[in-house]
């Protein structure tokens, strides 16, 4: 295995990891603040892709869909939080998990009813259809570079939002000590509502970004979900930098394993998780209620 091939593999691992990062960010931010495990995250990812399908069918423009789809899913997240999850606050911590678990089946079936069960063709926009020649003979699709770029931008935007804005400060404080924030007179309920929406929008964005790469079908969120959980748990639930780092690690782990021992590719992320959790039980950067 020569150096070029290895480099190419690392690059593909990066693009693989970026989707994980997007979803893990959403999941982590929701858990960090609301302590809600959003089992419907994979379904939101899938809905993002289908929202993209519909917007493109309406407008014929991928770029519009890229903006609209995450907003639609974010809006949906706001509705879900207000209508379904809010009534569960004060109850056992497991209830929102169970609710979102059931919710994903409903979301899955709705898509099946309205879009059918077969795959939806989804093309990358023409602007990004040209493969870029890097490393000599290796043609890397420019669309995947675009995905990497978009994810990096989102991470930066998120960081700026959390570190430099008042709202971001409130969110960070809220994960550390929600009681105190309430005592200061701030309505945590609104913040939770907003954060759930943001997390959902991130999932939706992941979905529409993934659509040209993978096929768009109703069950596309299910495998993504479990992998996503693993990424978040390894990174530390509630930690954003953990989500980013863990996503990249998992993507690379998957890619490298595929190169040398593909049968283990599915298992390797679970093994990594088992090892990490046994050594650092809260994940890489996890600390109760720390958003960084």
């Amino acid at each position: 295995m020569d150096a070029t091939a290895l480099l190419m593999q690392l690059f593909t691992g990066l693009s693989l990891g970026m989707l994980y990062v997007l979803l893990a960010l959403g999941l982590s931010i929701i858990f960090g603040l609301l302590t809600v495990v959003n089992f419907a995250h994979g379904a939101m990812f899938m809905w993002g892709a289908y929202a993209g399908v519909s917007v493109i069918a309406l407008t014929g423009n991928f770029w519009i869909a890229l903006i609209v789809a995450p907003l639609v899913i974010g809006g949906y997240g706001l509705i879900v939080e207000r209508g379904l999850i809010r009534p569960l606050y004060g109850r056992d911590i497991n209830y929102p998990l169970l609710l979102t678990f059931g919710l994903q089946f409903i979301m899955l079936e709705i898509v099946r009813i309205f879009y059918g069960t077969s795959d939806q063709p989804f093309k990358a926009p023409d602007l990004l259809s040209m493969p870029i020649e890097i490393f000599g003979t290796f043609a890397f699709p420019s669309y995947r570079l675009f995905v990497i770029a978009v994810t990096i931008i989102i991470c930066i935007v998120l960081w700026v939002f959390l570190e430099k804005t008042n709202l971001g400060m409130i969110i960070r404080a809220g994960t550390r000590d929600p009681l105190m924030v309430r005592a200061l007179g701030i309505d945590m309920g609104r913040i939770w509502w907003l954060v759930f929406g943001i997390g959902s929008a991130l999932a939706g964005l992941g979905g529409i970004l993934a659509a040209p790469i993978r096929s768009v079908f109703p069950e596309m969120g299910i495998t993504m979900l479990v992998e996503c959980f693993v990424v978040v748990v390894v990174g530390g639930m509630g930690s954003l930098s953990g989500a980013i780092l863990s996503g990249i690690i998992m993507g690379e782990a998957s890619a490298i394993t595929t190169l040398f021992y593909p049968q283990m590719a599915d298992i390797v992320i679970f093994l990594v998780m088992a090892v990490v959790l046994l050594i650092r039980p809260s994940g890489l950067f996890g600390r109760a209620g720390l958003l960084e």
Partner: protein
Amino acid sequence: MSEEKNEKGQDKGLDRRTFIKTTGIVTGSALLGGFHFVRRAHAQQTGPIKLGFPIPLTGPYAFEAKDQQAGAELAIAQINAAGGVLGRKVELLVRDDKLKADEGARRAKELIESEGVHLMSGILAAHIQLAVNEQCKLQGIPYMSISQSNEITMRPDNSIYTYHEALDPHQTTQAVGEYVAKKYKKRWYFLTSDYAYGWQMTDGFRRKGKEYGIMDVGESKHPLGTSDFSAYIPRILAAKPDVLFVDNFGKDQINAIKQATDFGLKKKMQLVCPILLMSSRLGGGAESFDGVIGGCSFYWEMNHPTAKEFVAAFQKMHGRSPIDYAGYAYSGIKELLSAVNRANSLDAEAIAAAIEGRTYDNYKGNQWWRPCDHQSQQDVFIIKSKKEKAQYDVFEIIAKVSGDKERLLRTCTEVGQDPNKPIRSGLIKK
């Protein structure tokens, strides 16, 4: 008796008399009401002939399943119009196996036990066929399999009750492999889905390729359900193959072809799929599949008399063109039902005797039932994906590989059966 159960106070909330009263009422009404629900646990002697048909109506292969049902309905409509089976109408009982083996087995149980079906067909997934076959073998119900599987005609799964109308991975790969070996260059690479279907396809291609002296330049096994194949591309490119065999199914096939196209693989090698599915082609899109070739059992634009009749009748009944799975269902059920008529009985041995050795042409050319394992010998077609964005006109047939004289089949001995005798294993005396 009650003491150790209840540590609470003396008042148990209910006295014995009330308890007996309540139990009596509950049990009595349940039994009375229950008789209403008790069904006959054996197949009826009069009334319609029932054909059980579990298929994956929900899940990723609903597209294929619907056509399986449509093909079955056409066959049954035609048979009923011609007088039915043994003078009785045939009834199709469709169930959803949700693409899960235990669900399929449970549906089979329900059909046999509760509905009293006389015959069984259906199932798309290879492993679910085997599960349903088990149930049918236990109860002595003839089962006509209409989907691909290598194991169903082998020991220990095969039995006198088991029939296989569809192609199996072996026939498919021998046919497609032969075509590719003759037409393309010798460096072959395999992208294999890491489960039975993938392994069998790759093994079949390798076997055929050996006869033509091809060079096996590598294999990448990928887990079932892989959505991102980018990690496999560098290795494939490094091996510099002339042909890449994409040995997977459904979503995996779509993703693999799509991403192979994205990475520009088509400029460097020919992409071949053992089976090119209509649903994959429609889901993946015209550009991704452009230029890809593969095998199929049937394509609706075939220029053959019985094919045209079948397609016309199907279009009339369902308003669309049939895919290969519709053809399997149509032909398989037609064969099973006509065999019952020829045997003039529902006895399994009589049906077997009426099918074995029979040559027929229901929709695609000559087919023959091999007696030793109840496998239908048939031709395979090589198709190429067209660039048009059409609804059904998406392939063109570029070749036909003949299945005559068992040239595509495994030998009887190889599947664990006696080449000189028809299969009689698993026969239950009822």
